[in-house]
């Protein structure tokens, strides 16, 4: 029941938004290059479905790779940080620097580093840069929230670091990790798009390409079709993690 409601309501809200949009574009006579009507966007999507499908697959592939990389690296770094205060003090600043360095500025460096023929690798690295920090930050906070007595219990049992991690730290940090995944899922997606903007090649054309090309030609309905696909992917990622959260945390309280 709850799940059905949780599914129905967003649909209803989005649908009513779309209807409102369609009507007000019509009513206020909004120029279509500013905000095209949803019906036009849908047409653009259907007219170019094969193109969009391929682009979506390309973007999605990079997004998922980057998200996985962010997940593993974020968790791993957070773990290292939790094991050694010294390591944390020494390397956290570098993570912060990576986070606040504009992607346009690093993109050329990344491209040079991986070689201009490995565009996809460059895209993954750039999208990873965008996605990994929330996971690191939240995982660190999660690891710090470990219950003192449970910690003592594990000490008492002489648990190995690995046991401590997967039986105590991991489940403790889970709510934090899940919250960050919802953030990083979106960031990996948007990071991929930005990466395609700054480092993409003409070979594998992701959604960024579609959006940009359409935008440059003022084919705004086509551009919005690309944005729509992005929104849908973002939503799928977000609700997948929400579902996971619901499943995993159900028995906690």
């Amino acid at each position, binding site marked *: 029941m709850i799940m059905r409601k949780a599914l129905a309501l967003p649909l209803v809200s989005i649908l009513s938004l779309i209807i409102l949009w369609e009507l007000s574009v019509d009513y206020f006579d909004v*120029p*279509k*290059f*500013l905000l095209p009507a949803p019906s036009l966007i849908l047409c653009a999507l259907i007219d170019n479905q094969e193109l969009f499908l391929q682009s979506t697959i390309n973007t999605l592939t990079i997004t998922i790779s980057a998200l996985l990389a962010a997940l593993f690296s974020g968790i791993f770094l957070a773990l290292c940080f939790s094991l050694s205060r010294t390591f944390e003090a020494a390397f956290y600043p570098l993570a912060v620097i990576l986070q606040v360095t504009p992607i*346009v*500025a690093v*993109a*050329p*460096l990344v*491209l*040079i580093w991986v070689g*201009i*023929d490995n*565009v996809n690798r460059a895209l993954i690295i750039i999208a990873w840069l965008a996605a990994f920090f929330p996971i690191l930050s939240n995982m660190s906070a999660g690891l710090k929230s470990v219950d003192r007595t449970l910690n003592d219990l594990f000490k008492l049992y002489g648990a190995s670091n690995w046991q401590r991690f997967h039986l105590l730290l991991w489940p403790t940090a889970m709510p934090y990790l899940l919250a960050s995944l919802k953030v990083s899922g979106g960031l990996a997606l948007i990071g991929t798009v930005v990466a395609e*903007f*700054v*480092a*993409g*090649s*003409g*070979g594998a*054309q992701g959604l960024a390409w579609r959006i*940009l*090309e359409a*935008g*440059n*030609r*003022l*084919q*705004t309905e086509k551009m919005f079709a690309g944005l729509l696909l992005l929104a849908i992917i973002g939503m799928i990622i977000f609700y997948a993690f929400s579902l996971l959260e619901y499943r995993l945390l159900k028995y906690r309280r």
Partner: protein
Amino acid sequence: DGITFATDWKAQAEHGGFYQALANGYYQAEGLKVTIRPGGPGSDNPRLLAAGALDIAIASNSFQPINMLSAGVDVKVVMASFQKDPQILMLHPDDPADSFDQLQGRPIFISDAAIAAFWPWMKSKFGYKDQQIRKYTYSLAPWLVNKGTVQEGYVSSEPFSARQAGITPKVLLFADAGYPGYSGMVMVNNSYLKDNRQTVTAFVRASIKGWIDYLYGDPAPANKLILHDNPEMTPELLSFAINEIRSRGIAGDKETLGSMSVTRWETFYKEMSNLGAVEKGVNVNNLLVPDLVPGLIHD
């Protein structure tokens, strides 16, 4: 009342005429209060103009106004700073190639704007493939370290930067290979034009005067403004750029500076629409205003 003129990048020599007109009071003499609003990589003059947020702005290339027209924006082009588009491809000095058609299969660093505009033309004209595209995000570094790659740019800008890094590149000008577009155009929202014909006329007149003065007189007043507006600009780059514009005839003859020909627009459109680079069924004549400034538009 004032008039805000939006350019397509930070202040540079490619906007020199407008700054000269401002610095020497040519606009003021026409009774105009002009503000120049520099653009940047994300500035989207066509969309802002289409939405009515801007009235008058630079069109970087001939594609922009045509795309606007085909999207249903009532826009007019009233002058062209450059008869030749300053777009180039740049090669490393020891590169064996010395013409466009020898660059098939080579990685080309090319900006988003160019991809949407020139790329289809280059593809069909020289047999390039999408796979060659590498994004140019305004850093020459990837090109500099990768011998054998090709770099897109402005004749008046990128070659200078390359020289600063110790490389004197080979330069291939699009226009020399038959690219028919104008550049540095002034485009105006037609509804604005209707109500402010006098103002626009005066703006064009003063701007042309500024360009002539900038290229053939003393560019110092504009340069001072440019250097102030753009702290990364250098006097050396400015004089390099002016020299390139002059020596390559980018702005055309002194007498016809700013003018456009209907036939050339039509040629451009025919070629590009045949390539699929722009939508079919647009009448480019609708872009032009024949007697706004007498003699500026000819057949």
